[in-house]
């Protein structure tokens, strides 16, 4: 425990510098397209960090998180369009709906082995997508099937969650991201984090010691689904249009999971690093190669995926942390890094 608390002052300086840069950036950047890119960068970092709450700590591989993005987006948007409920409140309702659905799905699936859980989440997300596509009306709500939902433009209105300046969206997402990272830190430092880590690595052993693994996994799932759904509302308000194809597709589910995995799952900053690295690579290759060679950017994405898994199966955060330690001269030993960034092993949890 002590080594987690023992954070060198250099780390704090770096953290402050990064935060300051993040806060100042919208004041420097003027181009709306660059701002849009930065907003989506934060959006992805947020999604992967939310995914990480269950994908990183509960020892399972969720591959259907787009379903929760869609649940959030559709809940808040339908409530807004039908009853004029402020999307800020709708966002919370969406989060709760997603958390409840996550628990319902989690109860039978979280105890399954990796492959089954992954397949179950894929099937669940696809079932939700097809359901939305097939539904035009539920009670008073006009779901509008595959055509999607359009949110009418209101100009700048806080209550309507609409802003003419991109900077507002940027700051909203930044705050959300810091929030989910804060929850991740709390989770890792709490007893829950130790229990989850024990349950993820050795479910039988943890069970035998009286840890109710299933309960803690469910809690992680509910948290993850809740935060993921908030991003759905954000996306709906940013784009003012949602459709089952662009918000509930397999592509989005896979992107969330794989960016987090490339970054380093089960760590605080891994998913964020993954998004910071991969989103620009994706954007640049798509913009510069997309016209000439359609699909090239996905070939590159696939290659990165394969190479990272072969050479850095724990994600790029590991070599990056090592590099950072060497540069600042702070890292005296390898274990130190491990304690800082990854969860303590199951046996430590047992000792506690």
């Amino acid at each position, binding site marked *: 425990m002590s080594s987690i608390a023992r954070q060198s002052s250099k780390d704090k300086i770096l953290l402050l510098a990064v935060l300051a840069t993040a806060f100042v950036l919208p004041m420097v950047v003027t181009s709306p397209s660059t701002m849009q890119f930065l907003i989506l960068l934060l959006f992805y970092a947020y999604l992967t960090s939310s995914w990480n709450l269950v994908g990183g700590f509960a020892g399972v*591989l969720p591959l259907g998180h787009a379903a929760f993005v869609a649940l959030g987006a559709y809940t808040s948007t339908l409530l807004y369009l039908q009853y004029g409920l402020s999307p800020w409140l709708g966002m919370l309702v969406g989060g709760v709906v997603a958390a409840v659905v996550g628990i319902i799905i989690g109860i*039978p*699936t979280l105890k*399954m*082995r*990796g*492959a*089954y859980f*992954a*397949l*179950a989440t*894929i*099937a*669940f997300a*696809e*079932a939700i997508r*097809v*359901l939305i*596509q*097939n539904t035009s009306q539920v009670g008073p709500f006009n779901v509008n099937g595959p055509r999607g939902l359009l949110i009418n433009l209101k100009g700048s209105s806080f209550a309507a969650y609409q802003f003419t300046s991109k900077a507002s969206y940027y700051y909203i997402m930044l705050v959300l991201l810091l929030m989910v990272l804060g929850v991740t830190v709390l989770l890792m430092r709490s007893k829950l984090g130790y229990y989850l880590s024990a349950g993820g690595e050795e479910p039988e052993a943890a069970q035998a010691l009286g840890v109710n693994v299933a309960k803690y996994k469910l809690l992680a799932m509910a948290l993850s689904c809740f935060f993921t759904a908030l991003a759905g509302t954000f996306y709906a308000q940013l784009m003012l249009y949602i459709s089952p194809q662009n918000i509930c597709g*397999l592509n989005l589910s*896979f992107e969330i999971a*794989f960016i987090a*995995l490339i970054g380093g799952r089960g760590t605080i900053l891994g998913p964020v690093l993954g998004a910071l690295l991969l989103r620009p690579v994706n954007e640049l290759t798509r913009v510069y190669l997309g016209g000439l*060679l*359609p*699909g*090239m950017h*996905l*070939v590159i*994405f*696939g*290659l*990165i*995926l*394969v190479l990272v*898994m*072969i050479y850095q*199966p724990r994600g790029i955060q590991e070599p990056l942390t090592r590099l950072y330690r060497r540069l600042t001269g702070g890292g005296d030993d390898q274990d130190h890094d491990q304690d800082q960034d990854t969860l303590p092993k199951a046996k430590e949890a047992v000792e506690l």
Partner: protein
Amino acid sequence: MENFLQSLISGLLIGGIYGLTAVGLTLIFGVMKVINFAHGSLLMVGMFAAYWFIKLSGLNPYLALFVVVPLLFLFGYAMQHVVIRPVFKAEKDVREPITVIIVTTGIWYILDNLSLMAFGAEYRVVHTSVSGKIFDMGGIYFLQSKLYGFLIALATALFLYWFLKHSKMGKAIRATSLDREAASLMGVNQYRIYNIAFGLGTACCGVAGCVLIPFYYVYPTVGTIFDIRAFIIVVLGGLGSIPGALLGGILIGITQSVGAQYMAATWTEEIIYVIFLLILFVKPSGLFGSRYDY
């Protein structure tokens, strides 16, 4: 009634081919405990290989089997050896290495998009000597190519089943799937077994690709449809079970085809997902699966 029979037979025939792709997937899972997410892409490779063979040679479409199937076997063998083995080795203590699932997904992205770059996004159909020919069974019509495809798929699945049960190599494969370490101690080279299992699984995609081409179109992301369906089928039949995969494929084929008689095709898709989730919740070992695998 006639419509019902017609759709029943049509579903049965196409279901056999779904079943065969699922057999390949379940074989790989049984041995390596890894879901091969690139499976649909390998089917796409098989379909394109068959497409070009038939288009360029102009021969009988089923002759493509003799070229495409060995080719796909080698492709799968090499892919497992070069790309998947290093990841697998690094995580050999883990029963179901998640990193391997991710690598296969990377391969999926790479194959699909390379094929997009090479062949473009258009749907391609090749005219063969059996294209469009129909059998008439007392008022019930179906494509000859579907019947041939079904029979070839069935024969392949039965052959694989026999091969695993009775040949020496098959026994080594089954031993490895039961217990890697014990099989290694008995002198089985587990990594060679993985290569062969992956090669056989990919060869199934080769067979399915060849029999699909006479009546199906091919395009770079065609695998996705079959991929998700194959995932559902293998769980339905029980991961690792070959008869289960075949039967699961036929059940899904029939559900889809008969369902389409009574409702919109998009709703039958929904029904398939719901059946799948229900099976996962109620009987996760599927029809014939081992209860140790879920």
